[in-house]
């Protein structure tokens, strides 16, 4: 595999945009990434799109060429990848693999989701399609319910507390308030987080990420060409995708995500680094418990210590290992198909030193972890200064 670098990034704001359609969001992000990487549409040799449920949310299918052509990208492969909330992480994995293998040079990867045009019960039902429809979902499981059951078991096995869960939400809202593109730029207190409306016990509305519209894109190419496009390249040191059972009741231990552990192990090995070397991370906090488990599975803290570490401030912006300096899915927003590439954009911004008020100090090596469903897909990416 030849080394691959990110030349450009582009993000829309995340939020509820009643007057924006799916395509216009994706096009905005894609064009920003091209502009940021000083490339034009005619140079793009393949378009990879991550999108979870555009056809269910909007009715529109055949999304990749639909979006690519609106950006002026035609005559090249344009393909959609679906892996639940890891859809664009998976698109990125496949795009980097193709560029690394020498199939293409200049590739645009985008992620998009348009969710807010549907009612919350309808969104809940569409999202539940990432679970096992014949088992857990038929019984009445929603994604908050699945992660609530994970949280309950984590609390039972490791003594994790409601305050520890809430501390993740408080921290991510503090960070998101500093992010001009975040969906909910609002600081919340521990008291508010604990007193939120109950969604699925023990998770309140403040433990859950947001239902958002948004898109993100990255322009990638071989490292040896990136200097022709930008003076701010960021190297893709590793990207690994792994899988596991979809149904929660088929997993031996639901307090850990086996796919996150295996993809992280692969990524650390490929990059030649250890968990302790990672300066900062964007992790998949679709629920507060998911961030606590992520920092355990990624090896940032020992198993069972994610809760105490979070409450003690270890993951804060100026803590020992900043996690979700962007505000995370919790505050930045979670347009599911855009999330994976959005995280990569956020890590690139940090490495370039362009994160403004959210800038972390140890910024030379960053990690992005994108989770699909209740852990059936995981993509871990490690990025570093080129």
């Amino acid at each position, binding site marked *: 595999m030849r080394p691959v670098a990110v030349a450009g990034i582009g993000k829309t704001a995340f939020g509820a945009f009643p007057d924006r359609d799916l395509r216009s969001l994706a096009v905005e992000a894609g064009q920003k990434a091209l502009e940021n990487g000083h490339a034009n549409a005619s140079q793009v040799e393949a378009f990879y799109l991550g999108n979870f449920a555009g056809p269910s949310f909007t009715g529109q299918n055949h999304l990749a060429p639909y979006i690519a052509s609106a950006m002026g990208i035609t005559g090249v492969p344009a393909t959609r990848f679906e892996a639940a909330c890891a859809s664009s992480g998976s698109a990125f994995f496949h795009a980097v693999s193709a560029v690394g293998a020498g199939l293409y040079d200049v590739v645009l990867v985008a992620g998009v989701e348009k969710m807010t045009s549907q*009612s919350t019960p309808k969104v809940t*039902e569409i999202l539940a399609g990432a679970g096992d429809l014949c088992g857990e979902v038929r*019984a*009445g499981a929603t994604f908050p319910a699945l992660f609530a*059951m994970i949280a309950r078991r984590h609390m039972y096995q490791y003594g994790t507390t409601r305050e520890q869960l809430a501390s993740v939400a408080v921290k991510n809202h503090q960070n998101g308030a500093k992010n001009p593109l975040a969906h909910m730029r609002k600081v919340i207190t521990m008291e508010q987080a604990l007193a939120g409306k*109950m969604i*699925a016990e023990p998770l309140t509305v403040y433990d859950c990420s947001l239902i958002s519209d948004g898109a993100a894109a990255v322009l990638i190419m071989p490292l040896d060409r990136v200097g022709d496009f930008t003076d701010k390249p960021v190297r893709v040191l590793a990207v690994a995708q792994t899988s596991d059972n979809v149904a929660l009741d088929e997993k031996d231990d*639901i307090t850990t995500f086996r796919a996150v552990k295996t993809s992280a192990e692969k990524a650390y090995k490929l990059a030649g680094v250890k968990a302790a070397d990672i300066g900062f991370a964007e992790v998949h906090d679709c629920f507060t418990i998911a961030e606590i488990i992520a920092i355990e599975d990624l090896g940032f803290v020992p198993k069972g210590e994610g809760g105490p570490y979070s409450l003690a401030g270890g993951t804060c912006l100026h803590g020992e290992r900043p996690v979700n300096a962007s505000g995370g899915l919790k505050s930045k927003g979670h347009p599911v198909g855009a999330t994976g590439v959005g995280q990569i954009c956020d890590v690139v911004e940090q490495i370039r030193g362009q994160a403004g008020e959210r800038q972390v100090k140890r910024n030379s090596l960053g990690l992005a972890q994108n989770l699909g469903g209740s852990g059936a897909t995981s993509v871990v990416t490690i990025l570093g200064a080129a």
Partner: protein
Amino acid sequence: MTDLGAGTIYTETVVYSPPEAYVNDVPYQLAIVELAGGRRVTGRVIFEKAGERAQIGDRVEFAEFRNNVPFFKKQL
């Protein structure tokens, strides 16, 4: 249909924000039940009195299937 027998609550939650199909059921208790032999199934736990709950480690017994979903009740 098969009687699933008795089992133990492996994990549980009470759902307040349901999918469209279950808006009339809330709140309801959802649980993963570990059956004899170790197989786990996801189902509902039902009670005679409103507000009752089963917790991790509680013993439950199979009551019936409704629309292919196993319903359990707490063992007395």
